[in-house]
């Protein structure tokens, strides 16, 4: 009898803890996030996190299983159906900004178990595949400069703007 009571108390406490933690998480959610990992060619993105939360409601669409929300991605469900909220939820916490460095390639290969995180995209890929993919579906803007303005060195590498070819077509006159 006593044991049953204790279990009930524990369950209640557990539920409380989960509630509280989700509330705590709630207070820790940033409204705006500056994404500036590729400032080499583009200005940073001032990302309106709050607006996206309001529109989408489902944290798992971007954060997979990490926020403890109901997981929909069948790939994640295989292991993370009940794995709960994780300490790290930010994109850059898991997605490497140098996904193809020798160290990162080795780390991906050596991980245990070596199954579902083998093909994890890098940070830039995660942003673009996630953002552009969803924007396409939702009819939201998808042009490069709809989200981030290209800076001067970006124009340089693209030979655009002030760096545009002066005499277009001239080089074409060589035989092909």
């Amino acid at each position, binding site marked *: 009898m006593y044991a049953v009571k204790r279990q009930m108390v524990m369950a209640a406490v557990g539920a409380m803890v989960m509630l509280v933690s989700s509330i705590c998480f709630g207070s820790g959610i940033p409204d705006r996030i500056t994404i500036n990992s590729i400032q080499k060619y583009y200005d940073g993105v001032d990302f309106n996190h709050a607006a996206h939360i309001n529109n989408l409601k489902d944290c798992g669409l971007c954060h997979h299983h990490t926020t403890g929300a109901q997981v929909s991605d069948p790939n994640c469900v295989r292991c993370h159906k009940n794995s709960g909220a994780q300490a790290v939820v930010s994109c850059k916490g898991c997605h490497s900004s140098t996904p*193809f460095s020798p160290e990162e390639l080795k780390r991906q290969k050596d991980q245990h178990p070596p199954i579902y995180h083998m093909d994890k995209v890098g940070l830039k890929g995660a942003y673009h595949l996630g953002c552009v993919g969803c924007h396409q579906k939702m009819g939201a803007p998808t042009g490069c400069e709809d989200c981030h303005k290209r800076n001067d060195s970006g124009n340089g590498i693209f*030979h655009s703007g002030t760096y545009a070819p002066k005499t277009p077509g001239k080089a074409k006159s060589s035989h092909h």
Partner: protein
Amino acid sequence: MIDRRDFLKGCLACSVTAASISVVGKDAFAAGSFEGYPDAMGVLVDLTRCVGCRSCEAACNNEQKLPDPDLPFDDQSVFKEERRTTDKAYTVVNKYEIADKDTLFRKMQCNHCNEPACLTSCFVNAYTKTKEGAVIYNSKVCVGCRNCMIACPFNIPAYSYSSPTNPLIKKCIFCYDTRLKNGRPPACVEICPQQVMTFGHRSDLLAIGHERIKNDPAKYVNKVYGEKEVGGTSWMYLSSVDFDKVGLDNHMQNEPIISNVKDFLGMVPMVLSIWPALFTGIHLLATKNKGEHGDHDHEEGDQQ
């Protein structure tokens, strides 16, 4: 203009008769016997991810110090016609409108074959397949004969006319000098916003490719293009539509082109070794009497 591949086929047809005599002994070399170097790197290109932004073209131009482009790299009007690689652009992105499917884009560049036809066809040995997987060339020894242009099954090597005194073949080198040999990914791979290209060990990429297909069979056609084609390539492709529809020959032979070219080239040394003998023979016959006499005199002279 005669299509280059038809020309190659013609050459091969000619060589088949001659080569069939010796073909038996060559089976040991044939069909994908060489899986590539064990540590070879590669790139898995997922066409379903590409948005046609042409950043990869810009990055390649910058990395390889190529001449200024005719149009800015953000100019989308280039998609009006299908382009190929040139001496000024080692990679180009083409757009393919697929009926009742989405538009697809495909970046093309050298696929860095495991057994490159360009390498085999080059009689001055300008080409090297490095242990990292890159097919590179030494422009100092290139004589501009363009055998490799004809041999390449993917139409990649381009010919530079910019210098009449030093005509050269030019193509993607997997960023070997500046990046690959130091373990770094190519410039085009690194700049791509969509991570269309996954860089890694070729064997791992094959596993990743097949896993992506398995996880989403409705999205992908069930094939990793380049796994077997022409004996396997370092750059491989995943697609949501038949590869023919995005400019990749879906009926490419699995045997390396090298097997055909080898037979064809087998004739070259034969020609080189037989002709001198032949001409010497003719010369000897033509000058028989005079020669015999002269030689005889000479021999006699020697004996004395």
